């Protein structure tokens, strides 16, 4: 339950080989960072980056955002060393590139369990965020979305996807529509979050705003980012409108009344309020809280009737 409400509007890539960027992770306003050991790090620096990321994570005690590490693809020879180096520093999870089929996720899941046993931490601590970034990945994503309890979502990767289709990526993104929609279906049916691809032109904030509005409409919960300057735009787009907040507050009030009366369904302004409506209202209020738009405590027991 916790996972589906965790805000993941902005997942910022930070190159694992740049101390000056890593040092600033605590101050970025993104909901999560994805420290990159894959594409951003040239072959000759893989070792050094692993050590650097491990040292950084060990000193970053007061974690104020989710930390994922993008390891190298399971198709390479490097991913095991990546895990060996960084898992002892306890990131929240792993971003898995090239998750073309459920088998990749299942394999990683098994390895993560072994690490958790060895480190003596709770099984399931390390989450997985697989990248759906090839035609094959898109075709298989419905099964991939159900391949592990560790999944917090699926992340669509348009750069590699368009390359695999041998097409150009456009700023308006018509060529991505079908794939994005399928990724959202896969996620929603599995109860996990859909995370959209990066937008690489860091100077074009208007196009980023437009794309973010589009993917929000499609059902994505957030977006991967390549530059901290993009965070603000994405958060602005995801900020709930005042009328949405007002309605959500009415829903919560109504359902709390319902719980007191011992029922899970109640009518509000002539419309039925049940679990899916409450779920959407809670999501809006959590987002509003993150934006500082409201200041309230959401008592989950009252809202859901259980923890």
């Amino acid at each position, binding site marked *: 339950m916790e996972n589906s409400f965790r805000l993941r509007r902005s997942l910022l890539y930070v190159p694992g080989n740049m101390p000056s960027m890593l*040092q*600033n992770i*605590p*101050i*970025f*306003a993104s909901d999560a960072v994805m420290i990159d050991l894959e594409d951003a790090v040239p072959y000759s620096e893989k070792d050094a980056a692993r050590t650097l990321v491990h040292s950084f994570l060990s*000193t970053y005690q007061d974690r104020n955002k989710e930390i994922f590490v993008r390891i190298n693809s399971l198709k390479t020879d490097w991913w095991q060393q990546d895990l060996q180096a960084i898992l002892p520093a306890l990131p929240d999870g792993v971003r898995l590139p090239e998750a073309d089929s459920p088998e990749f996720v299942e394999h990683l899941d098994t390895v993560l369990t072994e690490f958790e046993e060895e480190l003596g931490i709770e099984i399931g601590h390390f989450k997985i965020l697989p990248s759906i970034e090839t035609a094959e990945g898109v075709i298989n994503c419905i099964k991939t979305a159900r391949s592990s309890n560790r999944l917090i979502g699926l992340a669509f990767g348009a750069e590699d996807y368009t390359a695999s289709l041998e097409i150009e990526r456009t700023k308006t993104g018509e060529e991505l529509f079908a794939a994005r929609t399928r990724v959202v279906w896969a996620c929603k049916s599995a109860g996990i979050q859909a995370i959209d691809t990066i937008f690489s032109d860091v100077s074009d904030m208007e196009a980023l705003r437009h794309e973010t509005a589009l993917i929000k409409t499609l059902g994505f919960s957030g977006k991967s980012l390549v*530059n*901290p*300057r993009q965070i603000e735009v994405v958060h602005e787009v995801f900020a709930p409108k005042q009328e949405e907040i007002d309605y959500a507050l009415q829903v919560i009030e109504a359902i709390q009344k319902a719980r007191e009366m011992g029922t899970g369904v109640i009518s509000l302004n002539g419309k039925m309020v049940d679990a899916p409506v409450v779920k959407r209202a809670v999501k809006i209020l959590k987002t509003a809280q993150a934006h*500082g738009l409201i*200041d309230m405590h959401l008592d989950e027991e009252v809202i859901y009737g259980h923890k």
Partner: protein
Amino acid sequence: MVTNNLGRQLPETFFGKKVQPYQDPYSHKPVGNHATRPLRRHNPGDNKLLRGLREAIEASGLKSGMCIATHHHLRNGDALLNLVIREIDNLGLRDIRIASSSVHPVHAELIPYIQKGVISGFECGVNGLIGEMVSRGELNCPIIVRTHGGRARSLITGEVVVDVAFIAAPSCDSYGNMNGFFGPSACGSLGYAFTDAQYARQVIAVTDNLTPAPLTPVSISQSLVDYVVEVNSLGDPRKIVSTTTQITRDPVGLQIARYAAQVIDASGLLRDGFSFQTGAGGISLAVAEQVRRMMSQARIKGSFGCGGITGYFVDMLEEGLFRTLFDVQCFDLKAVESIGRNLNHQEMSADTYANPFNAGAMVNLLDCVILGATEIDVNFNVNVNTESNGYLLHNTGGHSDAAAGAKLSIITAPLLRGRLPIIRDTVTTVTTPGRTIDVIVTERGIAVNDHQQELKQELIRRKIPVRDIHELRAEACRITGEPRPVEFTDDVVALIEYRDGTIIDAVRKVKE
């Protein structure tokens, strides 16, 4: 040795004067009158226009042991001070004190003249190599660093007597009327030169744009000017823009700016009539941009923008966000272009801007100022003069003046610079006392001074990350490690004068 109220050790005398230790920002008030200078008489037909600088220096009666001044409106593009010193040397004069409004890296050309004894000291702060060499003991040349308001005060009280002021005049007529608005070396406001024109014993206007008399508009009037000299060039006005005048793109700087804007928003000062000052640095401009957005959105009509003026403030004036700009110094060419065109872009003297000993300076009316720092200590004292290596590298500018005047003084600074923690137990040099600082904004949190409890509670209520300043210091040092302290000798090479003329700190020679 004497100790001032901040516990800083000072010499009893320096550069031939008794040192008066700093006590507090607001109570010191001297008794006395404005300084005077000799009367003049100019009859019809008397000529002011001389053939060159040499003739003007001779006519002014400048002698060895005297004091001269220039203004720094051309900033790092200024050619005049170097030109004047060369002529002074050619005339065989020695032991000249310089009381300019500031000295910039371009004036490193003066170093051989310091070594030669032409220049014996600076009655003003310096930027760049001269200060560094003095700090290392490589130049023997006392420096008294003054704030912009403090410099105006020192001329007006007569603590500093300028024997000859050389005023670079981008437009000037043959009878001495001048402005900075037009001409090949246009620099906009001549704010720092006003006091010189009024109080120097002799005033020489130097121009590269001589126009027929009378020139209008008049910034500094013919009635104050003794001689006029034409030169080929006053310098390179493109180098007026010597600091960053673009909004920062650095995520750390932008984070600091966002927090600073949130502090302003929470302060309750951002309402109709809001008055505001920022510098020209990338973070300051990013704050200005945020303030501009908040003012537009809430349809707030501010009263005035103040201090050094940038193109961003000009845009805010032209968008109707401020009624007026009070401009002591133009920071970029867009501001220069505006001051000659916009009636509400008002030129202001350093005296009006920031002198504590007049009937009320403009800084007293400021709601909010954004200022920088090279270091900050846990008592909110701020250093802008020396770097963490102990070298005297920067002039104070209007820092202490605006901090003392404004209702809300915000220091914006990264918590880490390179590998240095910026919040320290004690600063290398105190420029501006912590009592006049309200809030420190870093990328990792905001420290609020104890006298601002109400603001602190409001920031906490708004979930803006308020941190104890000791906690910020500890966090910085956790990342960088404790830096080894810089070691100094006992030799005092410069004094940092507070705006009221008392001495807030001394700069000592670095042990190397």
